[in-house]
């Protein structure tokens, strides 16, 4: 980090300015898959946040011990350990949520928000800042996925958190809780987030460059893309 940020800025940046889902375009798979019901989305948000905070703390505490060359495998082990803990807790205390999340619960391991934060922040910053960063990013992720699930469940199933809102005589727009609806609602939310960002003078969210991807450093595609864009430019 070139400029010094206050703790408060580290905390709030995940809400909108660097919202992992809407601005950095990370963690798209669980966002699209789990946002069909509000309860599932809350469960996913809390689980991922718990893993994110835990892995951020441990990784930033170990940042001077982990050799740079093997940092990615080391990060993955730390993250996988926390995911296993969360998996056991969810299975024990919220079996209904466990059923809703299905394979997406163990797949938090490969959620790029968590590896992305480890690589971009926790591996370079002190423990306290990393904890705050983890909490802020976790809240940003949870807010985005819950907001999306509210839209999809309200219009797609006519209910909120499993409680029916519309009477059965009004048929819901079922396609919104089906896979195409996920892409569609995500696209519209992205458009609104872009609009808000534009008002604040920030750039639009893109996936064109590989900057957001945590594997960018290890990946040769990045170089290829750059070379190609230089040729075309």
């Amino acid at each position, binding site marked *: 980090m070139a400029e010094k940020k206050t703790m408060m800025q580290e905390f709030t940046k995940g809400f909108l300015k660097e919202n992992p889902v809407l601005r950095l*375009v990370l963690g*798209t*798979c*669980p966002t*699209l*898959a789990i946002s069909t019901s509000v309860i599932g989305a809350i469960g996913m948000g809390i689980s991922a946040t718990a893993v994110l905070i835990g892995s951020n703390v441990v990784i930033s505490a170990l940042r001077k011990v982990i050799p740079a060359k093997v940092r*990615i*495998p080391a990060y*993955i*082990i730390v993250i*996988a*350990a926390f*995911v*296993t803990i969360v*998996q*056991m807790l969810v299975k024990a205390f919220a079996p209904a949520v466990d059923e809703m999340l*299905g*394979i997406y619960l*163990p*797949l938090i*391991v*490969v*959620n*790029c928000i968590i*590896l992305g934060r480890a690589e971009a922040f926790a591996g370079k910053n002190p423990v306290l800042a990393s904890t705050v960063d983890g909490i802020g990013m976790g809240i940003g992720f949870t807010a985005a996925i819950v907001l999306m699930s509210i839209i999809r469940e309200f219009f797609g199933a006519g209910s909120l958190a499993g409680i029916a809102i519309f009477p059965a005589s009004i048929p819901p727009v079922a*396609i919104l809780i*089906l*896979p*195409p*609806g*996920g*892409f*569609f609602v*995500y*696209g*519209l939310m*992205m*458009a609104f987030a*872009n*609009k808000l960002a534009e008002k604040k003078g920030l750039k*639009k*969210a*893109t*996936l*064109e460059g*590989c900057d957001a*991807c*945590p*594997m960018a450093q*290890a*990946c*040769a*595609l990045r170089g*290829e893309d750059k070379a190609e864009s230089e040729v075309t430019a």
Partner: protein
Amino acid sequence: MAKAFMIILFTGILTENFVLRQFLGICPFLGVSKKRNTAMGMSAAVIFVMVLATAVTFPINKYLLEKNGLEYLQTIVFILVIAALVQLVEIVLKKYVKPLYNALGIYLPLITTNCAVLGVVFLNLEKLAGGDPNFLAYPFSGSLVNSLGAGLGFMLAMFLFAGVRERMENCEVPKFLQGLPITLIAASLTSVSFFGFDGLVEGLFK
């Protein structure tokens, strides 16, 4: 036997398409689908690693973890095995199969943390646990075929979507949808088209 495999394969490619129906591997789907060549190379590497990962993790799970009651270690063991496997494949290809390395090598590191590969491993276990009759009859080979189908489905989605995006380059898009939003909406429409395959596999093979 052939029938069971065909059902598993085509269910994986069409009705349970990995990207458009199950939301796995969305990052490469949105990020790498801009050029058809890159999309194809990436997909070929994904198919390769998916089948290999299934072949390696299945016996580990059955004879090591389940036998000793260590199922709770699945997540850690699988991700480590896949990461190590991808590294190993990269080294072996680089040394002995140069043409294949040149074609797939650059995509391999990306794939380690791709949720599609870990996803297919868990999906196979879930199908087995769920008592899918085709899987119960052929646990190991069925899982391999499912991984192949999932990989081919990934490739199909990438190929179709790369085509859609190439056409979109020259279109006039409303300003507030430019960039990623219109890409997502295009993905939504591509996903709708896959509803057309519903019931196809049952109709063909039953």
